[in-house]
């Protein structure tokens, strides 16, 4: 990805690395984000490609402190796609938009020949209004600040897996954590908690977000791994498959960095939302171990959470 950006996109657009982002301020307090979704299967316990597209795009806005306002959707449909399927996804989009408080104001639909796409691709662009004076940014992290996780991790990945591989049908009870995060961010802002940095744990999971933050801030992050909530069925599947829950994708979880004095209040606020009942303090920013994430285990051991290549799953050493 990095190579694509640096090798092709940035030079072609004539912009620098820092100028591209998941969500970017475009002036007048407006923030723009865009996100394409090619998930397979289209439906999974707790959501579908529609919920993913809306929540994903809105969450990108929420994570910089912008309230999601408008959405534009581009649908790429495979010839012969069942109308029932399309209707269900469209309804999901409607519901998710309502939950996020956004209006779908523009769209486009293209049909491609059979076999040219995997049923349906959905691309969304979102516009939000900035609600914070300063953008939440990992570069603002400083030693002593506290890290909070908004809920248990790994559910989305396992929910998708349970559909994809019939051997894991038995975990059908695990529903995706897919949800909009703005509500919680808004709650924090209204209570006067200043989010220093926020990021949703999507691809690469919690560990990858933390590794990125450590690199971007140049400080170390110390995590108490036993504080990271993982529900039992997710733990069970991870154990079987050799997956590491810290690296599993979520679609409705975020990490939040706050100042020391805000931490109790922030956790309390998050826990007052249905999506945040499992919110926990998971660690803090440290002066030591510059640029690295160390996850402490019980019994005085630790492990480094590296940013993994993702080429070999499960990880093999």
């Amino acid at each position, binding site marked *: 990805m990095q190579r694509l950006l640096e090798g092709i996109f940035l030079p072609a657009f004539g912009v620098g690395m820092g100028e591209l982002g998941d969500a970017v301020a475009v002036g007048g307090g407006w923030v723009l984000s865009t996100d394409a979704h090619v998930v397979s299967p289209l439906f999974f316990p707790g959501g579908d490609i529609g919920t993913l597209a809306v929540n994903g795009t809105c969450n990108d806005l929420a994570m910089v402190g912008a309230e999601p306002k408008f959405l534009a959707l581009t649908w790429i449909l495979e010839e012969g796609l069942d109308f029932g399927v399309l209707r269900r996804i469209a309804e999901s989009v409607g519901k998710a938009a309502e939950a996020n408080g956004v209006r779908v104001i523009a769209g486009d639909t293209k049909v491609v020949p059979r076999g040219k796409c995997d049923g349906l691709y959905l691309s969304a662009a979102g516009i939000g209004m900035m609600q914070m004076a300063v953008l939440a940014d990992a570069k603002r992290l400083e030693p002593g600040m506290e890290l909070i996780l908004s809920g248990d991790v790994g559910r989305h990945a396992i929910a998708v*897996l349970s559909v*994809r*591989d*019939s*051997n*894991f049908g038995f975990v059908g009870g695990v529903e995706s954590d897919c949800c909009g995060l703005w509500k919680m961010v808004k709650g924090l802002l209204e209570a006067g908690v200043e989010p220093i940095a926020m990021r949703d744990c999507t691809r690469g999971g919690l560990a990858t977000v933390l590794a990125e933050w450590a690199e971007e801030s140049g400080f170390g992050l110390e995590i108490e791994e036993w504080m990271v909530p993982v529900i039992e069925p997710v733990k069970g599947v991870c*154990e*079987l*498959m*050799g*997956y590491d829950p810290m690296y599993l994708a979520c679609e409705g979880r975020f990490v939040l960095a706050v100042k020391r004095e805000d931490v109790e209040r922030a956790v309390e606020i998050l826990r007052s939302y249905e999506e945040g009942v499992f919110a926990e303090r998971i660690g803090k920013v440290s002066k030591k*171990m510059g*640029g*690295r994430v*160390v996850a402490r285990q019980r*019994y*005085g*051991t*630790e*492990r*480094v959470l*590296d*940013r*993994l*290549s993702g*080429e*070999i*799953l*499960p*990880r*093999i*050493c």
Partner: protein
Amino acid sequence: MEGRVWEISGAVQGVGFRPWVYRVARGLGLRGCVRNTPTGVRVEAIGSEAALARMGEELRNGGTPAGRVRRLRERAMEPAEVWFFTNESKKDGFWIGESEGAGGGVEDMPQIAPDLAMCRECLAEIRDRGSRRWKYPFTTCAYCGPRYTIFEGLPFDRERTVMREFPLCAECEAEYRDAWDRRFHAQAIACPRCGPWLRLLDARGRELTVREEALEVAGRVLREGAIVAVLGVGGFHLMVRADGREGVLRLRRRKRREWKPFAMVCREVGELGGAVRVSKEEMALLRSPAAPIVLLERTGRGPEFSGVADGVSCLGVMLASNPLQWLLLEEVGVPLVATSGNVSEMPICYEVEEGLARLGDVADFFLVHNRRVVRRCDDSVVRVVAGEGRLVRRGRGYVPLPLELSGLRGLADGVEYIGVGGHQKNCVCLLSRGELLLGAHLGDLGTERAREEWRRDVEWLKGYSREARKVYVCDWNKDYGSTIELERMAVEVEAVQHHAAHGFAALAEAGWEEALAVVWDGTGLGVDGEIWGGEFLEVDWRGQWRRVGHLGRFVLPGGERAAREPVRSAAGVLASLVKGGVVELGEIRWLWGLRAEWRRLETFLRLAGDEGEGCVRTTSAGRLFDAVAWMVGLVEGEVSEAQAAMVLEGSAWGYLRRVGSEPSAIRQLLVREVEEIGVAVRMREEGENLIVEWEEVVAGVIREMLGAKGDRKAELERAAWRWHVGIARAVEAVVRRVGSGRVILTGGCFQNRLLGEMVVELLGAMGVEIFLPRELPCNDGGLSAGQAIGAAMRRGRQGGKNFSGDKMEQGN
């Protein structure tokens, strides 16, 4: 009057070299001086032609017991120099000069000695009531004592070691000045009056007592069964009586090390009560100045040392290598467990503060001292396979002596290579002008503490650098801790494939131009994105390699977890057998349906059969051994790394003991067995590759189990033995088909002595030349060396061209 100057490099500092030169020169009536330089020792002398010639000869042949002259350059003095020494008014005529500091063109790699085990003279002193060093745990002389772990700068002089904190008393000073004393110019000497002393602390770091009493009390509590953390030469050891099962298990519980064998330390092998067999080679290793842990085959008689190394065929034993260990053992009177002072795969602790912080929950007491340990150095581990000692872990006693491998000659191309190693059993190395400097064993890179040590080791290596251009060489696996750390460093990076690196290391050590490398280990990333581990590679001295064969593929459910949970490997292997119609599900159920892990086996069989999410394809020999160990019922549930393979080997040795054969009789047994079994292993061709169909060998084990009746243990041992025979014959079959004249056996699987010796027998009978690594561990401890060597060969002998087979490497 003539004069000559000799520049000597090699292991000539910290080994009593200058005192020796002094004595020789004085004996010859020469005038002049000897001094340490940043790269070695310089001798300048004037005198008669005959005396000078004699001096040169002595230097060429000579040295001290622990020293090693690598290169000697001689030149005649300029007249001005001769004039200087003629008129120098020092009354001695020959003296030991001030050391020369760094600066100037550094020609040779500076060498200091490794930490050397206590010599006989020092031992006699600490046992002698009349000596002023009676019971003094820091007794050393020019020929023994710590070196690598106490120096802070070069050349190796007291003021650049931690010993500078202890000014010599008058008596020590006198010894230091006396040319005929063995402490003449010995840098680390000390005595009870002026040297370091012991402190005994409780688990929270409170001082209980000091000096002699600390030793006595520590000995007493050890005798009574306590666990004591003892700060030795290269870090802490955790010690407990080896003859008390309860204490050993307590140590296991607290260290959270359920099974992995512990090493033991004793004064004499006799203290083990005949529990182990010691060959001539093994005895020589035990008593060498390096004094490593030697893996000794059990006899099945004598004390059991229950809990120390259950289920394995050998015991790791070292002889007390420093006065402190010796004195403690004398107080306790029985052999002690001496395991590295670390917790769960972290690096060994070597500072008092860190030890207290990390080992406070493990040890009841801490026996520490104020001779600081500058850098970590674990005990080395050696196993004799096919009659020669092979390093399993390179540490104390070997580090930091550079290696000159014959296969590296002529590889001085103005570039230096730093091999950064793998993810486990990590150690780093520098390859510079054909010399290989290996860092001490570090271990697993999963923790930040280990990464810190890794970065420190890399910095340390850079201190020995002589070229401007350095290339860092890593594995292809981007998720190795070493590869990840490298990415942060903004340096020139190359990659060498895992098993090829193993092959290159052995090739350079063997000094061969090409060979068939049998590389069998746990896991390494292959070119095709699959996990390799049962490889047959053609390697050559140009750094080229080609895969010519491998063990047949199977599927590992849960990837890396399989290394810790043999039932996964068993399921993967059985899934292949079922698919191939070799075994039926009914038979599997009949054999293992009552096992505690039956349900898990079923689940994994299904996952492996579908090859769905979480499954990886592998050709791993290590996992194949794990699978067989599970099938014959030797392991269950979670195990330590390599445990399954080790107990499988242990079980096969049990068979040998049962039929009453000495290890030397492997040959006859093997011949008989080969005749009995008949056909060798089948192979098929897949493109350019020979695929070893091991299914029949596993099926043989299963048939053995299906037919088992009577003494179950004996049946299992026989099955384990047969497995070894069968899989050794797989190597034989491939070598025969490929027609190689020179074969390398490497990779962690060849720590298995039985496997190694069987293959040596089988190939030897074919007239094939065989090489098993000696200096470079065949496990991942030798990986960094192989990386550096592979990259250097590639650049040095192909004019910088990358081998076309290494497509991935060009992209890296």
